[in-house]
C-alpha cells in the first residue's frame, strides 16, 4: 500500500526482512533492509520504538506529544511525514483495518 493512503488510524509495522537494531561498531541506531540501511536520528528512534504493529499513528503521536511535552498537531504531522517516507521506501508496512 502506498504511503499516500495514511490516516491517523493506520497501524505501521516492520515487515519481515526489516530490522531495527543498534549498530555497536558505529554507535548508531539503524533500520536494516535488503541492500540498504537507514540511520535514524533521535526523533526517528523515538517513533520507531513505538512502531510495534499494534499502535496506530494517532497513538504514537499522542505518546510522543506527552513524552516531549509538544503540541499534538505538530508531532502528528511529523510522525505522518516520517512514516510515509519509510513506507514509500519499503521499510514499513501499513494496515488500515483499525485492528
Amino acid at each position, binding site marked *: *500500500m*502506498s504511503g499516500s493512503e495514511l490516516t491517523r488510524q493506520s497501524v505501521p509495522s516492520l515487515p519481515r526482512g526489516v*530490522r531495527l537494531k543498534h549498530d555497536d561498531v558505529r554507535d548508531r541506531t539503524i533500520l536494516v533492509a535488503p*541492500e540498504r540501511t537507514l540511520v535514524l536520528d533521535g526523533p526517528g528512534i523515538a517513533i520507531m520504538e513505538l512502531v510495534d504493529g499494534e499502535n496506530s499513528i494517532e497513538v504514537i503521536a499522542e505518546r510522543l506529544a506527552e513524552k516531549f511535552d509538544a503540541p499534538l498537531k505538530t508531532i502528528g504531522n511529523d510522525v505522518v511525514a516520517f512514516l510515509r517516507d519509510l513506507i*514509500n521506501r519499503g521499510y514499513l508496512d501499513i494496515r488500515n483495518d483499525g485492528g
Partner: protein
Amino acid sequence: MTAGNGQSGNGGRVDAPPPLAMLAEITHRCPLACPYCSNPLELKSASEELTTEEWIDVFEQAAKLGVLHLHLSGGEPLARRDLLELTRGAVRADLYTNLITSGIGLTESRLDGLAEVGLDHVQLSLQGVDETTSDFISGYHGGHTRKIQVASWVRARGIPLTVNAVCHRMNMAVIPEMIELAVKLGARRLEIATVQFHGWAIVNRNQLMPTRAQVEETTQLVEKARKEREGELVIDYVPADYYATYPKACMGGWGRTGINIDPTGRALPCHAAETIPSLTFDNVRDKSLSDIWYHSSSFNAFRGTDWMAEPCRTCDRREMDFGGCRCQAMAIAGHANAADPACYKSPFKEEMLALAETASQSGTVEPFVYRGR
C-alpha cells in the same frame, strides 16, 4: 604501481571505515551456465572450499568488524549441503542474511529450515520472462518454471523477495514485462543490472552488449516505472556504463564498503579484483578479517586518492566516483590506476565506445559460449 601506495601518512595506512557488507561466495559450483557469469574464468573446486566452521568463524569476525549485510552467494549457494548451518551461524552473529540464488536446488523443506533459522531475505535471479528465452540464457532446461515456483514458496513463508534481472541485448526489450512479473511474484524489490563485462561476460561480449538506443530507452523506462511503483516496488538499476559520461562509483569505492570472500577464503576488494595482476590476496585461513580489511596490500591499493593518476588526481569528482572501476581500467586502459574508460575524460573513452558500438552491432546469430560446455 606499488601496493599500498594510497597512504595518507597516518601510521602507514589509509583511514578506512569499517565494511558494511560481505559477499560470501561460498561455492563456485552452479547448475546454471549464464553467459555473463561474474565468477572468474578459473573456478575453485569443492575440495578447496572453506569448511562450515571456517565460514561461521568468518561471519562472526565480519559482524564484529562492522559488517551489517551478509550475502550468501556463489556459484549457487544451495550447492553447499551445509547451507542451513551456515545461515544459522550468520543469523546468530546478528548479520542481516540474504540468500542470492538461482532457486535451483531449493526444496520446500530446505526453505522451511532456512526460514526457521531466521534467513532475512531471498534474492532470486530471473534470466527473462518466458521459459524458452530464460532457459536458453541460463543454459538450464526447466529453470524458469522452477524459479517461478520458488518465488511462491518464498512469499508463502513471508520471506521478503528481491528479483534480480541481469539485462543485456537479448532481454532488454522485455524489461516492462520483467517489472510486471516481479510484482506478480510478490517481490518488493527489483534489481535491474546491466551486464558488467568481467569474468565470463567478456567471452560473450558480442552477444550481450546492449545498443546505445536500448540503454537510453531502458534508463527512461526505469525512471518512469520507479515513480509509478512507488510504495509497491523498489527498483534498483545499474545502467550500462560503456555509453555513460561519468563512471560509476564501483563498489562504493575500493575498500570502503564491501569485502568479498571467495570459496577458498581469499578476501577480495571486489569480485573481479583478481584480474589485476599486481595484486595479491590474503586468505582468512591465514589472517584475521580485521587485519586483512585494514592492513592488506590489496585493500589499501586503491584507497584514498594518492594512487590516482591524471585525469582523476585533480578531478572534482574524485571523491564521488573514486575513479570508477579499477578492473575496467585494467581491462581497457591497461593500467589499474588509470581512469575508468567509462569516463569522458579518459583517453580510452573513444576506444571503449567503439568497442561497445562494434559489439552491439554484431550479428545475433553468434551463439553463446557456455562455461564448461
